[in-house]
């Protein structure tokens, strides 16, 4: 039967190494306490449902979605920056034509969201929302302003380090990733339970962009480089995965 053959031909994706992903329950991050599942996850062998995924293309993009500084009449306040990098899989292969979505606070640390009511100014020229597709080399590029740190009520005098939220689809359901990009040298890192929910120090460093002189545009904007790695393909066919 053709379906039989079909199921066996599609390799799954490698699972993440221990320590590289944050646990669901991380009590220092208070919101995890009532939202983390209490039972262990059930291992799901990858089937066609998981090795495929939405391939969302150009029809999702507006002309200025990649430039968060040009979405309104005037320019937003703050330091203009260029954030660029490549989306790769765990084997170092580019992930082309994949949707990248970003959102962030403005330069004063305020989100244009009704839930954020802390006393920092909104910027009528900044929405904080961007989208782009990766190129053939997995590359992406956004123009934006550097977001400010902002207070939250997780613990006494809690402040989030400046960050930009990233959402990536890759090309398979297993590759879906939502993460946050941080800026180098932020003094708030040791105090932030969200950043520190990732157990492995080297893994935490992978969420920090680096200053990129090559992406810096003279007289105009600082450049930051943030490469993102999604999962790589498993070498073993699906049916052998069950035997591990």
């Amino acid at each position, binding site marked *: 039967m053709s379906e039989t053959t079909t199921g066996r031909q599609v390799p799954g994706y490698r699972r993440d*190494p221990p320590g590289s992903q944050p646990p*669901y329950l991380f009590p220092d991050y208070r919101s995890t306490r009532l*939202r*983390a599942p209490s039972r262990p996850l059930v291992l799901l062998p990858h*089937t066609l449902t998981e090795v495929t995924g939405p391939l969302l293309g150009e029809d999702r993009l507006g002309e200025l979605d990649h430039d968060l500084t040009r979405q309104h009449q005037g320019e937003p306040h703050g330091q203009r920056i260029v954030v660029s990098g490549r989306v790769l899989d765990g084997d170092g292969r580019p992930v082309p034509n994949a949707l990248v*979505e970003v959102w962030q606070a403005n330069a004063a640390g305020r989100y244009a969201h009704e839930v954020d009511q802390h006393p920092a100014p909104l910027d009528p020229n900044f929405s904080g929302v961007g989208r782009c597709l990766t190129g053939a080399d997995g590359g992406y590029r956004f123009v934006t302003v550097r977001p400010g740190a902002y207070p939250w009520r997780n613990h006494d005098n809690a402040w989030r380090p400046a960050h930009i939220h990233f959402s990536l689809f890759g090309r398979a359901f297993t590759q*879906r990733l939502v993460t946050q990009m941080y800026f180098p040298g932020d003094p708030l890192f040791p105090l932030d339970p969200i950043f520190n929910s990732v157990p492995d120090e080297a893994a935490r460093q992978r969420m920090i962009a680096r200053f990129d002189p090559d992406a810096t545009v003279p007289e105009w904007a600082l450049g930051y480089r943030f490469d993102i790695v999604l999962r790589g393909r498993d070498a073993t066919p699906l049916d052998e995965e069950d035997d591990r």
Partner: protein
Amino acid sequence: MTLPPTPSQTIGPFFALPDPAAMTWPDGPYVVAEGTPGAFRLEGRVLDGAGEPVPDGLVESWQADPDGRFAHPDDPRGAVARPGFRGFGRCATDAGGRFWLLTVKPGPVPAPDGRSQAPHIALSIFARGLNQRLVTRVYFADEPAANAADPLLASLPEAARATLLAAPTGGGYRFDVHLQGDHETAFFDV
């Protein structure tokens, strides 16, 4: 060359920036276009460990078409694109933790062992307080024969299996997601 993965972080409370819409698209919940034959609403709530609604969650879905095919080049039977069928949906939860998707029932999808998987929809749940997404599957309570033959469902204890069955309502299905507690939904390590 093997590269270690970029870690996941919570989606946080502010992904639904309104203008332009960030992670919530105006057409987000439409896995199929309105008026598609067989279309129904899959509705539910996301609840926390205290039974309180999660008002700042994002639910995403991925599924095969009614023939069990994926519009994707890695479907070895060939990518099949159905007009008006996206296969993907997303919906932010409202103040009551409610979400909905307009979709059609997927066909059976081959399993790795050559058997057939019962019709199912893969769901990702993102929210403040979830350091990684949670993944679960929606199966359909009115497919008892297919469900009984499904290799994944068969591997689960009865109580866990029951959390994955969407209940038929008048013209649609209901599927609640319990993040934690006595009614906790079965979640998967993908």
